[in-house]
């Protein structure tokens, strides 16, 4: 995916480095043009993936001096980034482990290009999702860039060289991870870890807001609608955009890490089951406030692809209640594992 590249001190928003490292990545990348006319890229659909792929296990690579987050490794990735890694869906692992993005893998054999739970009225894009076209990195059939623009390449054009601070959702570049959604919806807000969570910890990680759920809901709106999830417990479907309850088992979120005694009522952030914030903090916080911080789609799922079915952050097949299990669902559902 098209993530922001390494900022420089002089101009924190712009990618720096050797132009040809990205723009002449391989022979024939640019088609010949008449003198005076701009060159055009060929195989636009693969360009994003080509830059953000790696043949070895590293998930951050250096390209012309720029640090590039890798979303697809050819071999098993060493430390998958926050969005996951398309390795798991590109290989013969099955469609259930990732989004079937064009240039990564073929269209999902089960869904045949239809996003599960797609509801047109929840998709703010003008064009809507075109099920006749493949899922793309960006554009109206993708996640990144301006989803009002059909062409994935155009929808994100120039973003890598634009001012991207502050992240206020006003432009594609100033949206969290270039997730602008559309003009009708403010871009996604968040705090971007400079290593894309590669070395995440309770103190160093991305920070999310509920706006990330609205982006997911653009294509999977059925699972976000209160009419379908229910309006209060007991829920019909697992809710998102609700506060982690401040009662019962949720009061000891992340039970394996005991917060200091002087932080009663505050729990310790766990990147394996992250929460969203009502207000995105300026720095990553290791504190989680039940009753305030939010359950989000990314509390359980990854965005791109993961080693597990349903693009989960953990193996749902091996989450076993009542046997002192740890992690996964039990980070929030603390009473079920013991």
């Amino acid at each position, binding site marked *: 995916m098209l993530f922001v590249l390494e900022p420089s001190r002089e101009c924190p928003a712009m990618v720096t480095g050797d132009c040809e490292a990205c723009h002449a990545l391989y022979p024939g990348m640019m088609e010949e043009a008449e003198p005076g006319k701009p060159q055009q890229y060929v195989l636009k659909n693969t360009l994003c993936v080509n830059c953000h792929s790696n043949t070895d296990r590293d998930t951050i690579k250096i390209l012309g001096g720029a640090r590039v987050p890798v979303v697809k490794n050819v071999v098993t990735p060493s430390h998958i980034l926050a969005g996951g890694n398309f390795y798991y869906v590109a290989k013969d692992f099955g469609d*259930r482990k990732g989004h079937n993005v064009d240039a990564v893998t073929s269209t999902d054999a*089960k*869904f045949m290009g*239809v996003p*599960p*739970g797609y509801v047109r009225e929840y998709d703010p894009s003008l064009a809507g999702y075109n099920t006749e076209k493949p899922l793309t990195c960006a554009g109206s059939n993708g996640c990144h860039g301006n989803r009002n623009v059909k062409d994935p390449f155009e929808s994100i054009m120039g973003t890598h060289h634009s001012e991207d601070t502050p992240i206020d959702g006003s432009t594609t570049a100033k949206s969290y991870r270039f997730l602008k959604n559309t003009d009708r919806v403010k871009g996604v807000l968040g705090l971007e870890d400079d290593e894309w969570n590669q070395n995440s910890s309770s103190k160093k990680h991305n920070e999310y807001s509920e706006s990330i759920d609205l982006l997911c809901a653009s294509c999977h709106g059925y*699972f976000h609608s209160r009419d*379908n999830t*229910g309006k209060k*417990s*007991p*829920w*019909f*479907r*697992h809710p998102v955009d609700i506060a982690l309850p401040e009662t*019962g088992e949720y009061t000891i979120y992340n039970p394996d890490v005991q917060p200091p005694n002087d932080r009663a009522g505050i729990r310790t952030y766990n990147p394996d089951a992250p929460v969203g914030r009502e207000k995105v903090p300026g720095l990553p916080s290791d504190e989680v406030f039940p009753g305030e911080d939010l359950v989000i789609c990314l509390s*359980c799922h990854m965005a791109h692809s993961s080693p597990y079915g*349903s693009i989960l952050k953990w193996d*749902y*097949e*091996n*989450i*076993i*209640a*009542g*046997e002192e299990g740890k992690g996964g*669902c039990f980070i929030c559902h603390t*009473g*079920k594992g*013991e």
Partner: protein
Amino acid sequence: MPYRKGRIVKRVTATVTMPVSVTYNGNVKKLNDIADRRNGLCYRNRFMFSLFFTLCILLLFVCFQSDVDARVKGKCRDCHSMHYSYEGSEMTYGGRAGPFPELIEGGCLGCHAQNPSGDENIIEVGKARIPQVLHHMENSDLAAGNFYYVADGYNPDYSKGHNVTEISLQENPPMDVPPAFIPGVIIPGGNGPQDWPNQRQLNCAGTWGCHGDRTKDDPYEAIYGAHHTDDSEIDGSTVGKSYRFLYGITGKEHVDWEYLATIDNHNGYRGNITHDTMDTISYLCGECHAKFHPNPKLGGRKEVGQVYNSLWVRHPADIAFDSVHGGFAGSEYQAYITYSLEAPVAFKEPTGGETEVDLNSVIMCLSCHRAHASPYPDILRWDYNNMFARNGVAGTGCLTCHTRKGGPM
């Protein structure tokens, strides 16, 4: 409905840090204490015997684990579907469409009535053992009975069971309201409904059901969290820690819901003849059928009759044999000696292992009835139409207690 409980297993861990010697009279000595006997064949023999004996004891600990930890075990996905979706399609369970509250796959019946025409009364899904309240396993009904006898689609007879939503249609008046219903009786956590509307059908749980917190209208809210509660101690303090998730009720739960129960290993029902608590199994029945229970918070003496040593207006429950008319001594009830699975009795402090019945044993609703449904009208444990005085079979049905009614007097 007896809800799913995982196999009840108590793990006993024995840690040995030092070899020990166990004498014939049971004393245990550290080997250090017998250091002066370490020479010669005699010592070696004793040591080997002691070691063997110790290992045998440890083996016994391992092999004969008893039961306490009863919360559900198993994969989350065996019972829950996060988004009521799989492979892009919504799921149905037994023809019932959802989504279902608590993300349960098929609601109560999705787990507890998985295969009505099947022949399994307990279904194992992963590590969870799930009692089936609706099945067709011959002669294998669980303690509460089997909704099969009253379930639509299976030649139902509505007189044989409770008409629970999604199992049966609602009964016609007057049986659309619980017989002997009294509005606003006191129940654990509050009051029962002030009215039972005619169109209100029975649910598994909640205000209009039996299980869970009956002060909560929504059946799923009423039972919320119970399956994941540590219920190794059944004290009635929460739904999860109540007998069979019948809020407030205590008792001892047979691990197989009385499948293949024996007279020394059965459900232990709680009874209380002082009628000053709300934790007896009969009190639970009385919450809806209040006029049949002598507890003053329910029907009381006015509806049931004088409690002790009197003639009854209605068949009593939560009274002991020694409180019957004329007293226990010399009564026919003295002849009910060995616990009967057909006509069980309750106890003040039930263990589930009682084999004997005496003057303190308590008559309860479940002495005669089952909870869900049975092969017999009035959800009885036996066919009342075939109960004959003077010509009856001793020790069966009514005659289990009324021992002098069956034969020549």
